[in-house]
């Protein structure tokens, strides 16, 4: 009897599934999550939004937020290249897209204010399942990128 019961239970045992969840992450070309920018510098910085998933056949759309501190203003202190603004559409075969930010001289820079610009991944539209935002894990690493003007 016991053997029979054990056999019944063993037959229903299913192998645990590997951690195979698709995720999206953001960073600079060095894999960093933040950078300081001189308040008087004029330069263009490039971020990369990456998909980690299986091959897909329908476009995947990634939305991100741009959170600007009270010391900076989009269009004045920085400009995002229009073709890299949210949402980003990943066509089948594309797993990385840039987000380009041109920083301008901040004429009235106030170091006491919040001079950060944060690019935060928000959501993903896809038909291959739900995407995790950032690296897998409780800390959601690489889910956002912070520029700080100094």
């Amino acid at each position, binding site marked *: *009897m016991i053997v029979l019961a054990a*056999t019944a239970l063993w037959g*229903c045992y299913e192998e645990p599934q590997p951690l195979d969840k698709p995720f999206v992450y953001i960073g600079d070309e060095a894999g960093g999550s933040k950078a300081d920018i001189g308040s008087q510098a004029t330069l263009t910085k490039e971020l990369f939004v990456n998909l980690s998933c299986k091959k897909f056949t329908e476009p995947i759309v990634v939305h991100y937020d741009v959170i600007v501190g009270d010391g900076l203003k989009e269009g004045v202190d920085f*400009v995002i290249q229009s073709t890299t603004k949210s949402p980003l559409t990943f066509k089948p*075969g594309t797993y990385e897209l840039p987000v*380009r930010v041109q920083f301008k001289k901040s004429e009235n820079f106030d170091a006491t204010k919040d001079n950060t610009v944060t690019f935060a991944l928000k959501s993903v539209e896809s038909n291959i399942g739900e995407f995790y935002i950032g690296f897998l894990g409780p800390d959601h690493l690489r889910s956002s990128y912070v520029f700080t003007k100094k």
Partner: protein
Amino acid sequence: MKKFLHIALLIGAVSALMCSCGPKEPETDGKAEVTSFVITAEANPELELTRNYGAVINNVEGTILVALPEGVEVTKLVPTFTLSQDDVATVVDAPIESGDWMVDLTEPVVLKVVDQMCLVEKEYTITAGTTDGIAELSKVVFAAADNNGKLTADVEPISIASTMTVGFTGDANQTYTLTVEATMDDVVTMNGELATLQEPAAPAEGEEAAPTAYVWKGNVDCSFPIDITVTDEKAGIETKYVVKIVKDTYGESWAKVASIAELPRAEYAMDIDPVTGDLYIAHTETSTVNDVTDDRLTVKKWDGSKLVTVGEPAFSAKRATYITLAARGGKVYAMYTDNAVSSKLTVMMYDGTAWKMIGVQGEMDKHTGLSKWRTPVEVTPDGKLFAATTANADIADYGVVKRGLHVGMWDGTAWSHVGTVGGRDAAQMTYLNRLAVAGNDLYLMCANQNEKTTSVYKYSAGAWTCVVNEYKMDPRVDEIATYFGTMKGFANGDVYFALGEKVYGSGTWYLQLFKLAGDKLERVYSPIQDNQGSDASFDFEFDDNGAPVLAYYSGKTETTKLVTIDPDTQTWTYPADLGEGSYNGNPTYMQKNTKGEIFMTYIKQNQKLDEETGKTVKTYEVVLYKKVK
């Protein structure tokens, strides 16, 4: 009771098996699709394809386009295809299998796919077409003609690559017209916008039409990198490029301050006296002496605002070639071969009043052998003149070996052969000899042609020592620059080199700055890659901030370019193109005077109409640039 318990357990176990592990409801993907369709080289050996060709599948339109190179027979194709889950494919109701079905695509063929689980079906029409099999750019240019005065010259990247860089001297924060050239069936977008395909120009009357060029133009905002996508739907290929714009302002740091135009020959030399700071340029000019017209040697000096002749002009007896120059403490030495004495080496010195012969013409040749190339000369702090030659013939009496390295010295009264250089084998073939004074010592560099190595020697207290013995810059180097390279010595004893090297198999020449470090040449910053070629000419100095400044001839553009080190990135700046046609085969010089001013010279080739013959003839111009910022 016990019996009842056993039966209950048995029933429970069986139930558990049946409920948990019994047959599950079959899953269906709910679709009938062709997911891939490829004509592989392996399955179609008779076609002699060099690669596989994937068809373009449109699931909405129900089409499969098989695009193959022109000339490929499409009557007996064996496709390799995959279908979505549980599907079967049929043609004219007959089932077909991937890799086992031969099809004639001279006419469209209808393929039906049926999902056996959910009975969904779909039809595809398969057709064949021709493709060049590529989607790529062959040209990228911001043409001056398209950009209405915003550009003074065409701006192109150094090479076509997935990421390219171009330098703008003007304001890059505005819209420019970009022109690219793609291939057959390509569609080009720039920053997501469809570019405009240009109509080919009509041929002139009587002329054949030029080969088709697929030229696209678009207006792009250059304040950001430009994303270019080239799509060939027939080939099913998409290629992406990024063009990054950098500010090319380094050229604005330099100004042309003088030139010597309409020279009959490209021969010249420049040197700055390290004691007085005076800049001298030696060149030829056509003159008639005793009814003999020839291109004789003249030396000029920069007086701060213009070049003035030093002593008598055209002072060589006849044509002067292979000119080199050395100045120190107010004395100027000009070394050249003079046609008047069968092209023997001649050394003249200007002592402040007149040009005078040093020794007897051809005397030095006896000791060191005549070199058929420019002989580097250098004057040491104690006033001795050294010349390093590559002998063009054996002179047994003087121990001179053809193509060996030999150094002659003028001590103020006579020439002599200065011993065996650092124990070097006199028969070891060398070119590219260079001399430089660093501190109080004289250094000699040579390129060992057979070994493709560099050796450096030091002459101190009347004796030579080998400092660097046959140094190989890179284990993969298969060729080093034969004629052009630079060595510079500094008052603090530092010695630097700029040398060209080509890595095996790459076909590309790199220009690299080195510093003498013990018995090695230590690389300083990364190599500069700009297709200079083995006979390109370059020279360098260090600015007031200690950053190297380097001028070189670019074989690609046939112009002279300047680079320095960006203080922020600590890498070489985008090469500033001076925009003037340079003439290769002659040196580029860059030196700093005692005031810290940096000068550069190079030869520019021009053309003019000879009024007597009515023919176009070449003329040469020495241009003198000064770093002004």
